[in-house]
């Protein structure tokens, strides 16, 4: 194996090895743990940067390992993989900083950061997977690594949430396994094949089987992606500490599920083939229902994190919708939302965490006037919220624009109604929060204020949301730059649809 | 039918009877005895089947197997009896204890 095949593995190891070491650290070794965490995150970012540069210059990074007779474990760096892995690497660094600040003084930090690192390892593995079985392997690893993070606090609510999470994800995993093995027995290969998938050769007698397999795979991925009706675990998982919610909802679990759906439609079935099978229509409907349902439920939540959770359920389905519309422009919209939603949602969760940590605020009704007390946090929150609503110039607007255009291009005008409805609902549940925060007078005392002197809150808690909000803004404003997420998504769509 | 065939049938019959005895009796000593009779019945079958024709000497291999089997049976019986004694010392009865309750 030469350097080109080692690089993907190194990217994975850059979080696995620190994680394993951290497990063994005593609770008091704060500095060493912090160093390991940050070093791992920085090394990973550097390696990903190298990989980006290399792919841009035409290098090929691939690692193959024999897993079973006839099946290999494949790690490959293609444009779609790179999109997701870069997002993961950047956001992991940011979340690590945030988590270090957030969990200061909490028990079991070594255990937390150990599993945290395992979580990122699994996510990066999912991103770099080159075939369905590698994807499955890392996807299940993700389940195992995130469970301890959800139950971290150890309370009865946490354990119940963990049990629910497991019930959903293990069930989804079983369906995924079944679909994958079945597919393998029919097609003899599981390699991700851009531009058409690998199922073209199969004859018509397999149509019913393929439709069922599609359903199995989509449900399997849809559980983590929180597609209705498999979303039940997500609101309950909010009991986890804020860094976990941020990571899970922006990068790891939910995105992995959405990423899986993207892979299945583009690189396993292929868009043309899927259209021919007639399975994309139901997927579009499912995504649309999820979008509306999530937003509706969000309206009625008073707990801030739960409102954000339902918002996530709604927003991630934009990706599925973009994929299901099956046109190049819609693809761009769906794929770019992987990045945009990640940036915006993580900002919102970081802010929610700040409010909880600094002022003890968990409910929206407690947020009166908080904009004056924590201006930077609320500015970041505002940017994220505008992005969710789809207001320019934040990144969310770009997504909605492309999805809308794509719907028109593919003769699915009804999608525009869904998008419009969703924007209205998003406004309905975000604008009141902003109004409360900026324009209402604060109540006498915050529920549980911690003193940070003259600062708004700890640096480690403040910088991450500001940074990600800025990135979300930049992703929307600077779309013309060659390395913007949008241009990247255009590249991916072009590759999928044979466009020049 | 030939004598050896008769012996073999008796052996099978004994096997069945002792199997019944093993299952039905509760007392451990009876169970152990039943197992012994089962073993002996199989040895009987082996020896009976060892006879080939009236002229040729009997086949020695089954005889060797019987001897080995006897040795094994003796060791097994010894272990079984010791276990039974220990169990009786613990529980006061030479029977299999009831299925598991929470004992500690």
């Amino acid at each position, binding site marked *: 194996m030469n350097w080109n095949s080692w690089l993907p593995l190194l990217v994975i190891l850059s979080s696995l090895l620190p994680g394993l070491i951290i497990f063994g650290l005593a609770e008091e070794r704060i500095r060493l743990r912090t160093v390991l965490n940050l070093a791992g995150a920085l090394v990973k970012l550097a390696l990903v940067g190298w990989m980006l540069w290399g792919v841009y210059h035409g290098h090929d990074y691939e690692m193959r390992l024999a897993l079973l007779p006839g099946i290999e474990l494949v790690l490959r760096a293609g444009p779609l993989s790179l999109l997701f892995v870069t997002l993961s690497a950047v956001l992991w660094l940011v979340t690590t900083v945030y988590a270090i600040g957030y969990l200061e003084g909490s028990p079991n930090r070594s255990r937390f950061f150990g599993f945290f690192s395992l979580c990122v390892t699994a996510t990066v593995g999912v991103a770099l997977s080159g075939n369905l079985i590698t994807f499955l392997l890392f996807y299940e690893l993700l389940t195992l690594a995130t469970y301890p993070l959800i139950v971290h606090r150890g309370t009865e609510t946490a354990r119940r949430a963990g049990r629910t999470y497991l019930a959903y994800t293990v069930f989804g995993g079983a369906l995924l396994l079944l679909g994958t093995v079945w597919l393998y027995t029919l097609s003899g290969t599981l390699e991700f094949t851009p531009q058409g998938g690998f199922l073209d050769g199969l004859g018509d007698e397999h149509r019913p089987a393929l439709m069922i397999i599609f359903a199995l795979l989509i449900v399997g991925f849809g559980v983590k992606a929180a597609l209705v009706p498999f979303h039940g675990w997500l609101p309950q998982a909010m009991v986890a500490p804020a860094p976990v919610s941020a990571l899970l909802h922006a990068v790891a679990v939910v995105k992995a599920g959405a990423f899986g759906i993207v892979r299945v439609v583009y690189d396993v079935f292929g868009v043309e083939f899927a259209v021919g099978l007639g399975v994309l229509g139901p997927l579009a409907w499912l995504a649309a229902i999820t979008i509306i349902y999530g937003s509706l439920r969000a309206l009625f939540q008073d707990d801030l994190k739960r409102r954000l959770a339902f918002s996530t359920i709604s927003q991630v389905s934009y990706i599925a919708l973009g994929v299901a519309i099956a046109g190049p422009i819609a693809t761009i919209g769906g794929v770019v939302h992987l990045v945009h939603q990640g940036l915006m949602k993580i900002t919102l969760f970081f802010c929610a965490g700040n409010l909880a940590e600094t002022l003890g605020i968990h409910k929206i009704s407690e947020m009166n006037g908080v904009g004056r007390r924590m201006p930077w946090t609320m500015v970041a929150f505002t940017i994220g919220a505008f992005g969710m609503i789809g207001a320019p110039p934040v990144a969310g607007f770009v997504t909605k624009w492309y999805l809308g255009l794509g719907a028109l291009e593919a003769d699915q005008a009804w999608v525009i109604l869904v998008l419009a409805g969703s924007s209205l609902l998003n406004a309905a549940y975000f604008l009141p929060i902003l109004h409360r925060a900026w324009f209402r007078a604060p109540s006498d005392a915050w529920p549980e204020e911690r003193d940070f002197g003259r600062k708004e809150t700890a640096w480690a808690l403040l910088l991450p949301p500001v940074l990600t909000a800025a990135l979300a803004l930049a992703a929307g404003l600077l779309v013309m730059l060659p390395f913007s997420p949008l241009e990247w998504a255009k590249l991916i769509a072009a590759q999928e649809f044979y466009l020049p | 039918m030939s004598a050896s065939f008769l012996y073999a049938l008796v052996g099978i019959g004994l096997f069945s009877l002792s199997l019944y005895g093993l299952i039905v009796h509760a007392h451990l000593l009876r169970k152990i005895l039943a197992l012994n009779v089962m073993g002996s019945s*199989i040895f009987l079958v082996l020896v009976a089947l060892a006879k080939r024709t009236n002229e040729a000497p009997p086949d020695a291999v089954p005889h060797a197997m019987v001897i080995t089997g006897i040795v094994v049976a003796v060791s097994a019986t010894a272990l079984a009896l010791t276990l039974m004694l220990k169990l009786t010392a613990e529980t006061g009865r030479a029977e299999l204890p009831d299925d598991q309750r929470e*004992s500690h």
Partner: protein
Amino acid sequence: MGTALTDSPWGVMLILLPLAGGMICFIWPRMAQVLGLVTVFSVALSVVGLAWQMLDTGVYRHAVGGWGAPLGIDLYADGLSLLMLLVTAMVGFAVSVYSAAFFEREDATRFWPLWLFLLAALNALFLSADIFNIYVTFELMGLAAVALVALAGGRDALGGAMRYLLAALLGSLAYLLGVALLYHGFGTVDIALLAERVDASPVVWAALGLMGTGLLLKTAVFPLHFWLPPAHAHAPAPVSALLSALVVKASFYILLRLWLEVFEPLIGSEGVHTLLGLLGAMAVLWGSVQALRQTRLKLLIAYSTVAQIGYMFLAFPLAAAAGVAAWNAAAYLAFSHALAKAAMFLAAGNLLRFGGHDRIADLDRVVQRLPLTAAAFALAGVSIMGLPPSGGFIGKWLMLEAALVQGRWDLVAVIILGGLLAAAYIFKVLGYAFTQADVVHESRAVPASMEWAALLLALGAVLLGFLAVPVLSLVGIGDPFGASEIRP
């Protein structure tokens, strides 16, 4: 060096070393622990030697004393035997290290001779080339195992041991009667010769019925599994590990051998393998449900064994059409289960030692104080659940593949459902690793070697997830599953 390696009678050493070691341990109790460890280590080295030799020259056959079959005893090893020998050596070594720290002085002097005799019996069994030798080694194994179960004394252990003994003896006697019938019918007990001579006559059917039932009883296949939970749960932890990991696999191995070689002409008929598949399916489901219902950890793990054995029996109906693939799946499952289950029992032993009890509901504090043990249990659980990456996943994948290719949706459902149930009972235990700490019951500290032995076995089970290709090619030495024969 090369020829010395390949010419040495590794097979003979595999049997003689533990026999001699066991006897010396019995005569010289003060040195039992050290001698025991040294013996097991040298056995492990011998297995490696045998593997080296077999990779070089293929199948291993050795006539003990120079007298060949049919009157003498042959030692024979192909890929499948080698796999079982390897598993025995690996698990045996880890459990020995564990036991060195686990047993007190008095128990130790009784443990080591018995364990070494068990090891000798296991090795001899896997190397046997004729069905009568199998009977003898089988009995030896059973007696040693029963004595080990009764080691600690006490009502539950003695009761479990007695049940085990009665079941074991019944099983082997049924087997012996089958041997008698086969010998009478075909004039030989050598497996290879029998394979050539056997045909589908009533005698063979009767033998199959007797031997099959006896072996099913000893493998604790549903519904003949009644003796297993009490025995495995009440034995000392390392003994439970040996029983679940190795002893149970031995009778499965015999059944598999007989099925592949001696009873081959009967395979075509639907009845038997459907029955075996059905029993396997019921074992998976019933065993898993029972495991879920347990309140005591070791009983949970014991019922999990009942369930996992069921998976291996699913290979029988699948092999009728998919042949090698299904057997490979069963072999891989056996290997991974041995490592994972041994790790689990050792971990349970640690928890028991630390907290003084094994009630699942009260495990919290204990589990959190023993992170290595918790990790061992978790990793072993991953393999038992069949989640990637682990040997259990590979086995599950192979089995699913075989089932899907043949359209056996019933078996697919059983495999998937079994995995879900396993996840339920594994996480039932693991959930307690993350609760808020309550009261500490600390009775005794757990030595590091005990924790590491469990963890290393669990890591082995996970690592197996990446070693499928070399392991399966090893199993293929000597073509035990008849891949070269074209099946209809």
